[in-house]
């Protein structure tokens, strides 16, 4: 059994397997299938200041080796989370991390400061990369000065671990990573979904109500790996990798590219027990290859 501990800023997690926001509900959806407490952490569904209904149906389309979604941050708002969901999920013996969203900098600060008061939650993930909302989200994540402004503002209002999740929908991901590092981020998560679209030739209509949506799944993995690799060698803070991880081998590839931890997203829809299988597979890989701790393979790409 290798040492799987890893660090996200000042936060130590017991193993590097986390779930990606928006793909794991609040954890309770998966309780029938796995022991949530075995995971390194869970990123709960994106939360905003006020309740949001999200986008109209249809919100998803299957595309080759992936899916497009246009959920649009449907959630009941931070107050509902604090009052009703937090007490229920506090029982999980794993790091619960809130994915923080907003249409304005004030909304991001509002959510972050309310989460800060929750004892069990030691980190937030600032989502400046949601492609499915008209305001905020990716607008912050694809314009460097905005990314800096929102990161700085939340950094000033929030003292625990601050993760920032970047959008892959930019020309030079490294510029953004360096900028948010400078602005006070403790770690960088990437990638969020890639902006895409799907068309039904028969009906000549788009398959999503919003026309465009976010692509996830194995289809995005090569892009995700490339971005993790580029960013990890440029910043000093840890990188949390995700995008198309379906099994332990995929996860190992992200560690080799420089990720200190990983998040599993779309794969949970196909195999609700996949996170535990990935965790066991990582351990097996380390044991079989004579590594005694995870950190030995982080960024160990042999070039």
């Amino acid at each position, binding site marked *: 059994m290798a040492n799987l501990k890893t660090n996200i800023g000042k936060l130590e997690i017991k193993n590097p397997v986390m779930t990606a926001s928006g793909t794991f509900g609040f954890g309770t959806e998966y309780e*029938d*299938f796995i022991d949530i407490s075995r995971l390194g952490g869970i990123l709960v569904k994106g939360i905003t200041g006020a309740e949001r209904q999200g986008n109209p149906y249809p*919100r998803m389309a299957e595309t080759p080796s992936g899916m497009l979604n246009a959920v649009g941050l*449907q959630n009941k708002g931070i107050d509902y989370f604090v009052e009703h969901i937090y007490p229920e999920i506090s029982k999980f013996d794993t790091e619960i991390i809130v994915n923080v969203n907003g249409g304005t900098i004030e909304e991001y600060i509002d959510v972050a400061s309310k989460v800060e008061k929750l004892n069990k939650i030691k980190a937030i993930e600032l989502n400046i990369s949601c492609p499915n909302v008209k305001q905020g989200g990716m607008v912050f994540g694809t314009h460097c000065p905005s990314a800096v402004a929102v990161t700085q503002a939340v950094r000033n209002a929030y003292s625990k671990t601050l993760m920032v999740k970047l959008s892959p929908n930019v020309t030079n991901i490294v510029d953004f990573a360096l900028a948010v590092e400078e602005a006070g981020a403790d770690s960088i998560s990437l990638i969020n979904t890639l902006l895409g679209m799907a068309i039904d030739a028969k009906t000549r209509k788009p398959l999503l109500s919003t026309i465009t949506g976010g692509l996830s799944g194995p289809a995005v993995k090569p892009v995700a790996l490339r971005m993790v690799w580029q960013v990890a060698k440029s910043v000093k803070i840890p990188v949390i990798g995700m995008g198309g991880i379906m099994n332990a081998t995929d996860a190992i590839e992200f560690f080799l590219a420089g990720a200190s931890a990983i998040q599993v997203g779309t794969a949970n829809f196909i195999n609700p027990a996949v996170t535990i299988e990935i965790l066991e597979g990582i351990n097996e890989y380390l044991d079989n290859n004579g590594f005694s701790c995870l950190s030995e393979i982080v960024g160990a790409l042999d070039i």
Partner: protein
Amino acid sequence: MNNIKAKKRVEDFTIIENKRLNKEFFILKLKSAGELPVILPGQFAEVRIDDNPTTFLRRPISIYNVDYSGNTIELLIKIAGDGTKKLSELKDGGILNIVYPLGNSFSKPAGTKVLLIGGGTGVAPMLILGKYMKANWGIEPLFLLGYRSDKLIIEKERFEALGKVYITTEDGSDGYKGFVTQHPILNEPESNFDIIYTCGPEIMMKAIAKKAKELNSACEVSLENLMGCGIGACLCCIVDTKDKGNVNTCTEGPVFNSERLKWQI
């Protein structure tokens, strides 16, 4: 049998029969290696097809029949695209990985005058519901099943074994010619039901919901929204409700009281 929902699980089933009914429909009979959990009428399974790029996500399919003594379940499937086509080609002895039992179920009616309306593959949850209500609620089901033509009628004898069956076909090749909503049983002065249960194309269910309202009957519809996960995690399968706004079809449904939905009917 109690009504407590069983835990959801992922399981490899063995295919013991793949029966082609006609050019569109087939039935997969699957055997569990262990003991089946309680499966309620209206619940569904998320079926894994394979690892191919075009059949990446699971496919939601209603449970058509359960046999607790043999630990088998049946799925009634219509070939709609790549995924269902691949399922139709599976051979006996093969393995099918499914996540089940998912979703809610049809509710017990206030009285005993009930009508179960199915259209196309929408007849699938009606068989299991008919069987369940007879065994557990002591209610004899009355079926109204709509098809395009007689060649597409599905296992009429199995429905007849449970209760009276009325058929409509669009071309008049069997039963009443027309749509289910035009059938006399819904259009006579004395037509009234404590509840109408239905599953089928959305346009049909909307017409039935409207009819039920006219007849002052309750109405439960089973929706077939596109699903990403089937377990309430992706929020892709939503339907707009009057009381709670967008809710997940896969966990709050697939069965809804038609009055809850913001349908334009």
